[in-house]
């Protein structure tokens, strides 16, 4: 699903070069739930941005669902991002002036779905996160946990192959965080690959596999996925090649 080999990311100014990622290799297989951990400044967000096609990389290879993303132009990257990836952000990133229906509709419009198809997907995804009765509500009328559920609904509405979650519970209290995490686990059980960047060791422990990043390099990883209760036997193992 997601394969990076010897990936480099260098930020250059006229004075200095900063190696945000160096010789970074990872292989996330379809259906996995991988947690990427590491201290601040370690390169987690850079990894997330590159994996989510939000930023370009300097060297190495990156294959996303069989597509070599090197050399893709901005439009192609936008299209690929829209079709393959769902994003969940720490600050939810809902659009405050749009109601829940329209918020979930945003990526679907860019996908070019017909109105009827969009409506069906929006209602289904909001129903999946338990907010089908609040279509006309605005984000400011919801709790943080509910807002993150809307963000998850928005991420899932386009049926992405990969869900990228950036500190998805970072702005939530423990009760809400647990609810969101359970929702992500359910989504993963239903077959969506999830890559989650987090500081939270407890949260990371709930993922099938952990990748630890320090100074832009993978320093520690689980070779085999940890099995979670009922899903034993349902998983193929992920492989980290770094």
């Amino acid at each position, binding site marked *: 699903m997601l394969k990076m080999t010897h990936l480099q990311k260098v930020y250059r100014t006229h004075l200095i070069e900063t190696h945000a990622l160096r010789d970074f290799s990872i292989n996330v297989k379809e259906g996995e739930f991988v947690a990427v951990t590491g201290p601040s400044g370690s390169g987690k*967000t850079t990894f*997330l*941005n590159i994996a*989510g*096609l*939000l*930023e370009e990389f300097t060297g190495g290879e990156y294959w996303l669902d069989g597509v070599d993303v090197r050399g893709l132009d*901005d*439009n192609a990257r*936008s*299209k690929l*991002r*829209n*079709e393959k990836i769902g*994003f969940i*952000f*720490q*600050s939810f*990133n809902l*659009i405050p*002036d*749009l*109601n829940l229906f*329209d918020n979930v*509709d*945003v*990526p679907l*419009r*860019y*996908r070019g779905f017909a109105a009827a198809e969009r409506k069906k997907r929006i209602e289904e995804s909001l129903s999946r996160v338990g907010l089908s009765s609040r279509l006309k509500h*605005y984000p400011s009328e919801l709790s943080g946990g509910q807002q993150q559920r809307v963000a998850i609904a*928005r991420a899932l509405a*386009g049926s992405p192959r990969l869900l990228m979650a*950036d500190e998805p519970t970072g702005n939530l209290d423990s009760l809400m965080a647990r609810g969101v995490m359970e929702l992500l686990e359910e989504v993963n059980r239903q077959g969506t690959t999830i890559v989650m960047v987090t500081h939270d060791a407890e949260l990371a422990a709930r993922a099938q596999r952990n990748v630890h990043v320090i100074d832009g390099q993978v320093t520690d990883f689980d070779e085999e996925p940890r099995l979670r209760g009922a899903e034993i036997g349902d998983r193929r193992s992920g492989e980290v090649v770094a």
Partner: protein
Amino acid sequence: MELRPILSALMRSKVSMILIGLQVALTLAIVCNALFIIGQRLDRMDRPSGVNESDTFTFSSSGFGEGFDARAVMKSDLEVMRQVPGVVSVATTNSVPMSDGGWGEGISLKPDQKTSTAGTAFYLVNDSAVQTFGLNLIGGRDFKPEEVQDVTFGDRPQPEVIIVTQALSEKMFPEGGALGKQVYLTGDKPSTVIGIVERMQQPWMSSDEVEYSTLAPVYMTYGNSSRYLVRTEPGRRDEVMKAVEQKLAEVNPSRIIGKLKSMQDFRADAYASDRAMTIILGTVIFALLAITALGIVGMASFWVAQRTRQIGTRRALGATKFDILRYFHTENFIITSLGLVLGAILAYAFSLWMMQTYQSPKLPWYYVPIGFLCLWALGQIAVLGPAVRASRVPPAIATRSV
């Protein structure tokens, strides 16, 4: 198109939308009516006087001292001026078009008519005036030297023959024209129309009957004063003006030569207020359009800055740069369109008020649709810069901490 969600989002931040919409509305209403007024003024300024303006000038001569024979001096002056190199023709006249000073008369078809058929400018000229003014004689003939009467100031001239403009001819005789007909000007004695000129404006530009003019063959001095009209060879007017002034002063120093003034100067003076109005209204239009454009740029720039993270999120969710560009252009289109609808109502209301208050003509219907197109274009051009900036917001902004 994202019309509905954009409109719905705009409805949640109404103040900016209303302010810009109102600005667009007022701009449309004022610009349409101001352009219409400018158009009217330009049309007015563009009216042909019917005379040669580029090579013609006029001036007065006022004699002083005992024994000054104005009539004799007038006739000798004409001869002297004809000898000046570059002079094509000279004439006497009591007034010239666009000068704002002259003789007005009522012209009637019957001697006992209580209300005259038309008002006319009454130009008292000699037999060379048609040529000197450069009038286009389209019917009949010019005056003969023997037809020119000597009239003393204070007497009412009763010319036997006259030349009238085509407009006056058609006014008096809508069917068949005035040529050969008898009309009454200053008394019971009829005047026969012997010639028709295509056009000759009155001295008064504000008159509704500006092309109703009559030429009568009359030498008339005003005390010791007389007025001359000189036509020069093309391009020699200024040179001849100096030469004529010098020559007349030499041949008879017992008089004062008034300011020599070209017909172009008369035109410039006659339309000075129209020109000033055009410039003022043009400046107002430019300022309004500039303020509206800057308002749109300011609002759009503010919204781009305010929504940087939102734009990044949209990009992360799959929007292309073009999608972002289109979003801001659509948003501007909606705001401008709402303003324009209100502006159209205001434009017609303003026109109606002008009609009722100043008897202005009705604003032609096509001004508002053209104004729509222009302001739509202005809005789209104004929002282009901020929209391009928005489209350059990188999608990675979405993952940055607040």
